[in-house]
């Protein structure tokens, strides 16, 4: 059974075209629906801080107690450092709310755009240049 976990109908699968640029790495346009948005809330199991791509593995539990293993795809540490991320920004057990583009296949994978941390901070890759522009991570 295919399950989609949502936290807000208004923020979920909102379809719009933005002028803000996103990261593009190989195959993202093939694997993800870049014109659709999805928000999922879960608990971090692993923060993959690696070159050339980073990722978040996190578990999402639905109202019936079923657990799905999700993964979020991010850019490289250079781009993420410029956006205020670091190798210590997440650790297993952290609560996180991730927003991004859903996979085309329906698999529990998401192309990361921004996340809400349990301490109230939001980190985004939206609009971050890879050439070292400093990201404004608070808004």
């Amino acid at each position: 059974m295919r399950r989609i976990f949502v936290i807000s109908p208004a923020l979920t699968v909102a379809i719009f075209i933005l002028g803000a640029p996103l990261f593009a790495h190989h195959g993202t346009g093939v694997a993800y629906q870049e014109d659709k948005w999805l928000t999922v809330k879960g608990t971090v199991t692993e923060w993959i801080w690696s070159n050339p791509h980073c990722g978040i593995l996190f578990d999402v539990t639905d109202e019936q107690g079923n657990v799905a293993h999700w993964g979020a795809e991010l850019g490289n540490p250079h781009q993420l450092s410029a956006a205020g991320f670091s190798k210590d920004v997440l650790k297993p057990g952290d609560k996180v709310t991730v927003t991004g583009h859903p996979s085309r296949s329906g698999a529990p994978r998401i192309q990361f755009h921004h996340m809400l941390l349990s301490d109230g901070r939001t980190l985004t890759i939206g609009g971050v240049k890879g050439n070292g522009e400093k990201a404004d991570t608070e808004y």
Partner: protein
Amino acid sequence: MWNRFLNSTLLLAAFLEFSYIALAQTYGTPGYSPGAWKPDELPKELSQPKPFNARELSGVWSTPTTPGYFERHSLDDKWIETTDKKVPPQMRSNTSPPPMTEWGKAKFEANKVSYGPRAIEPELNNDPVSQCEPLGYPRDLWEANLRPFEFIQTPNRVLQHMQYHDTWRTIWTDGRALPKDPDPAWYGYSIGRWEGDTFVVESVGFDDRTWLDHFGNPHSDQMRLVERYRRIDKDILKLDMTLTDPKAYTKPWVADTITFVNPKVAIFEEICSPSEEHRFNDAIRDESKAKSKP
């Protein structure tokens, strides 16, 4: 309910746009290195204006266009769409590769890509970058839309340090000629000379396993590159490039003029780690094709 949906959507769109605008206002701290030195940890003289010398190329360079939906189209200073998003007319490529030879066509067809109109699933491509294989030149240069490169000028060489994959290219300026029958090299063999204020670089001896770009345009070991760099201002560098490769293309490929600017950041270590890429693919990327598991 609909109004709540609309309001939330507009609010989200607004803060995403705001974050983009805010970024533009924080652009450019000389020597800034994300993840390492913060602006207040750098020598103050870095931010002092320096005299401009047209025959001094040393410095960090990057393309001024914000990357995002669009990827540099090879030798053109334009972009093509990589997804179903629309490219603004002013950014569309006006030129395209010259006609390929039969050898070139066969190699192009054999190159399975995950970018552009021929994109297939990432796990099915044979793009060297997917295995952290060498990008070679000039492909590594196109990555300057995302990552800067650095020129380091010495008395007998100009070194080109590419941030992406952390690679070096040596351009000899000691008067030597190009090698006559070189063994292939990922980044070829290069010599440079000044013609007035134009730095002219000629290169041969490229390994034909690399691609020209991530759209799979090929080149052969017969490829010859001529690059003409002009530093027209303190923070602006222009490049005109001509590629001649009779084994792959029926006529020379003359690029649009490419503009680089000084992004006022330091080069960042960005090594492509094969083991880390495989780990990422196993855990995240390849699973994106899998169906939801119970």
